[in-house]
Structure formats: structure tokens, C-alpha cells
């Protein structure tokens, strides 16, 4: 099931098939919440170490989190932002995830589980990368023309 622009989310998907995931505790991932967010490429590895269910989409300029409840995705995305902005290391973020999730489960104050602690852009910001193939394409086109000319020469004089 897909919801667009529901609450703070660009898109929310609930899946039929559960994906097993043991951080911070054993559960299955079924709900994925997406936001517009540009992650610097040099932060990708840190986010991969932080949580395998935080998914960075470079070209679309999106980040999503997939877990068993929306609140857990809010925690993960808040901590993702802390890592990207150098407010937390990966280890600190993983520790804080456990702390916040535990507080949330015990109905204690847990702001990181209640709402996103940073502003999310409504505008899509694609990372389209750079065009690199143009020069090579021109080179290949020249080769192709030469091949055609050679073939015609071998077939006899042109008229």
C-alpha cells in the first residue's frame, strides 16, 4: 500500500512481505517512510554502518527508513541527520537509538521518536550526476563513419 504526502512523509509504503531485522531488537521491517534529503556521498558508508534499513537514494535525493512502526523510522531518520551533520558518530547514534526506542516503548518522553527534529524540503532535489559519455560517443561515431566508408570503398567506387 502506498500513501503519498501523508504527514511529514513524501511517500509511505507498507509491504506484505516482512524483512527480518535484528537492530535494535529482533523485528520485521514492513513500513518504509521516505523524505527528500540529500546525503553527501562521503556519508553513505557511515549510514550503512548505522542501520541497514536506512536507505539512501542518491539520484532521487531521498532517504527512507524501513522498520516495524512509524515511530522507529522517525528515530532512525533523526539519527541519520545527526550523523550527516556530524552531531553523532555511528556508535553514538546506535546507542541513542536503543535509548530512545526503550523510552518510547515505556511511554517516557522520547522527542526523537515523536517527530522529525529537522526541516524536510518539499521540493525534489535530484542528484543527476554529470554527463561523461559525450566525448566517447563522438569518438565511437567517427569510428562508425570510417567503418561505413571503408565498407563502401571495398564494395567498389562511389558514384
Amino acid at each position, binding site marked *: *500500500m502506498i500513501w503519498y504526502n501523508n504527514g511529514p512523509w513524501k511517500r509511505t509504503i507498507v509491504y506484505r*512481505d516482512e524483512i527480518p531485522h535484528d537492530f535494535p531488537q529482533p523485528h520485521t521491517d514492513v513500513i518504509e517512510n521516505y523524505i527528500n534529503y540529500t546525503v553527501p556521498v562521503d556519508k553513505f558508508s557511515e549510514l550503512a554502518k548505522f542501520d541497514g534499513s536506512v536507505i539512501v537514494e542518491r539520484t532521487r535525493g531521498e532517504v527512507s527508513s524501513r522498520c516495524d*512502526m*512509524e515511530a522507529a523510522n522517525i528515530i532512525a531518520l533523526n539519527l541519520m541527520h545527526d550523523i550527516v551533520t556530524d552531531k553523532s558518530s555511528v556508535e553514538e547514534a546506535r546507542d541513542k537509538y536503543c535509548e530512545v526506542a526503550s523510552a518510547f516503548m515505556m511511554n517516557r518522553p522520547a522527542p526523537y521518536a515523536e517527530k522529525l527534529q529537522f526541516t524536510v524540503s518539499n521540493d525534489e532535489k*535530484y542528484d543527476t550526476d554529470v554527463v561523461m559519455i559525450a566525448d566517447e560517443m563522438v569518438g565511437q561515431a567517427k569510428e562508425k563513419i570510417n567503418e561505413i566508408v571503408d565498407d563502401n570503398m571495398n564494395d567498389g567506387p562511389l558514384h
Partner: protein
Amino acid sequence: MEQEEKLKTAGIAIFKVQTIGGAEKTTKTFVNMDKVKSIINDWNTMSKKVANRTIEQDGPPNEATESE
């Protein structure tokens, strides 16, 4: 793929990026709740629970298929 087809595909892709961009087309209609119920009826407990909780909070989904 034939060469002509390859060049057409590349041309269309470049033209579309330059003139239209790639913005997501979101579905603005909602799925009929009878259809939603019939789909999630076969889902396992956790997926069904989360789907129902999201429906309670945000209303019917904009899209629904057998797997998501």
C-alpha cells in the same frame, strides 16, 4: 536492440530530462476500502496490523497491490 532503437531511446531520454525533468507523479485518488480489506486479508499479522494502523492515521492508501 537495433542501433536505430538505441539512438531513439537515448534521444528521448535526453529530450525528456532537458524539457520535463523527472518529478514524481503522485496518485491523488484513494483505493476503495473494500479492495484494501480484500488485499490485506491475506497478509500476515504484522503487515496487516501496520497497514491498518496507517489507514487509521492517514486514511485509505493512494495505491494498493497484492504485495504492497
